[in-house]
């Protein structure tokens, strides 16, 4: 292998690594607020690309149906709860949140995105559809499990992934898609050929991660989300609702997943079930950071991207094997160096 190839591989690795960074950051966020390892994050990424591609083909995306069904279930659960508690306010809020908002987005997706619409608008509607799924998944799957141990939540997350990919096949079909990317000719930078796509991915990833960091580090609302994670009861007695915190962070992770999907869509072919491995690689990055330390999680994600790029050059059939085997020593080191509380299944 000569330096040119190495540089190209490194660039590839950094670009996919940048997307994993975004995924890893979102996973760490979700985990630190709700103790959920959000495995379906990857599915949302793949669904974003599939949604955008449907818009590009001038068809209504299957995401619309997923959204309608999920919103109906969430609404039903909330209404049943509101009736039981005789809480009219709760019902009204829920009607707005899980009724009105999804309806507006679905209507926009069905009637306001002609084939000729500008790419940015298609991207925005795709992102809105996916982001909206985040809080719905939280309401249906995780909100009733709020008091469960992290391992139970992990199993629930895997179940949610299974469910999503099963609907994914149904509404998107088995064909893969590749979406339109940032246009423009490649240019040279410090002796490397750089594509605008690569620059766009890196810049977007850095922007989003920084924005999230600032929100959680400095705003009172961001601190409140973390407070809900540290101590549920403590949060409740100062008026921070842990349910609202969960919903907010799932909305954030939905947005992050949508952006990741828009970024990665043009660089690789995505299928309805591509999400799992994507999410897993983000997860590996996140866990390198001990599910808590953002810079380490980012470094871990970049490492995963780079290892993957080089592995696919040397032994593409074993690409994923190599990624996962290389990661085990890192896992071991993290596990031994962090004192995690023992968690059982109950």
């Amino acid at each position, binding site marked *: 292998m000569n330096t040119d190839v190495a540089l190209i591989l490194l660039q590839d690795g950094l670009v996919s690594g940048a997307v994993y960074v975004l995924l890893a950051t979102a996973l760490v966020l979700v985990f630190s607020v709700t103790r959920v390892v959000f495995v379906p994050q990857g599915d949302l990424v793949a669904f974003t690309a599939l949604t955008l591609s449907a818009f590009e083909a001038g068809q209504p995306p299957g995401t619309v149906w997923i959204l309608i069904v999920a919103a109906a279930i969430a609404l039903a659960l909330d209404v049943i709860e509101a009736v039981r508690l005789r809480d009219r306010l709760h019902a009204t809020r829920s009607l707005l949140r899980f009724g009105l908002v999804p309806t507006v987005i679905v209507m926009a997706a069905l009637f306001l995105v002609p084939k000729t619409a500008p790419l940015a608008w298609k991207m925005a509607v795709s992102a809105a559809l996916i982001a909206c799924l985040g809080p719905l998944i939280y309401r249906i799957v995780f909100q009733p499990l709020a008091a469960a141990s992290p391992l139970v939540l992990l199993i629930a997350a895997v179940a949610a992934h299974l469910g999503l990919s099963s609907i994914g096949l149904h509404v998107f079909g088995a064909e893969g898609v590749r979406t339109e990317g940032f246009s423009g000719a490649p240019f040279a930078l410090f002796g490397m050929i750089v594509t605008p796509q690569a620059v766009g991915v890196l810049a977007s990833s850095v922007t989003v991660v920084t924005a999230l960091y600032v929100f959680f580090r400095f705003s009172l609302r961001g601190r409140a989300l973390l407070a809900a994670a540290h101590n549920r009861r*403590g*949060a*409740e007695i100062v*008026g921070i609702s842990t349910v609202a915190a969960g919903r907010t962070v799932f909305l954030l992770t939905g947005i992050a997943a949508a952006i990741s999907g828009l970024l990665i869509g043009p660089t690789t072919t995505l299928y309805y079930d591509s999400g799992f491995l994507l999410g897993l690689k983000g997860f590996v990055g996140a866990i390198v950071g001990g599910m808590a330390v953002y810079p380490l999680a980012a470094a871990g994600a970049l490492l995963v991207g780079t290892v993957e790029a080089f592995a696919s050059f040397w032994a593409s059939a074993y690409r994923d094997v190599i990624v996962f085997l290389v990661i085990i020593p890192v896992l071991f080191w993290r596990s031994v160096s962090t004192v995690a509380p023992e968690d059982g299944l109950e």
Partner: protein
Amino acid sequence: MTALLRIERFSVRYGRLLAVNDVSLEAHAGEVTAVIGPNGAGKTSLVNAIMGLIPFEGSLAFPAWPAAARSIEARIRARISLVPETRDLFGPMSVLDNLRLGAFALRSEVGFDMASRLTGVFKLFPRLAERREQRADTLSGGERQMLALGRALMLRPSFLMLDEPSLGLAPLIVAEMFRIIQRLKNDGVSILLIEQNARAALRISDRAYVLENGAVHLAGGASEIAADPRIIDAYLGGSMTAADDGRQRLSGRR
């Protein structure tokens, strides 16, 4: 005297276990109401249910703020605050963040001024001001209790519930804690005080309830309760002097 809190036929259940059994109780404005009783009597369940943290049966009313009984958020907006037995601080966050979050629910109210509230708390607890950047989980036991109380005071509560504020503290700090409670009372805060330390609690309260096995065993003015022979026997009986008799009793049995 107006009642700030009135509960009637109030019960809390955990599965088959009846932790609080048919309790009726009132707390009045400007007073300290003490609930005393041994460990496991149901005191913490009672106060957590009043705050809205756990479900209960029976009636609960805050006559001065009719809306407050609806939800925990409504109680907080009515300036009802709880310092729980377990403190429940946000461990990895700084003292300052813990205090700021104490006023989280009020952040969008008109005329809300975070800085002046912080100054107020720091004035009461200069120790916290010194340690404002320190992580809450590195504080000593006494400082943690101060922070928990300080966080509750960020609301400028009109009704404050304190669950075992002296638990696990060195006696000197316990005395300090009770001085602060007295001071809050003088400033016009109405207080519901849950304590095992019956002697100290009765000294600063106006009315008292003795809880045993989840039910009210005795109720009345604090001074009457403190003078009741049954209470003296069970809770106030010279904790130190009686120890010698007990010891002799035990060694006699050997």
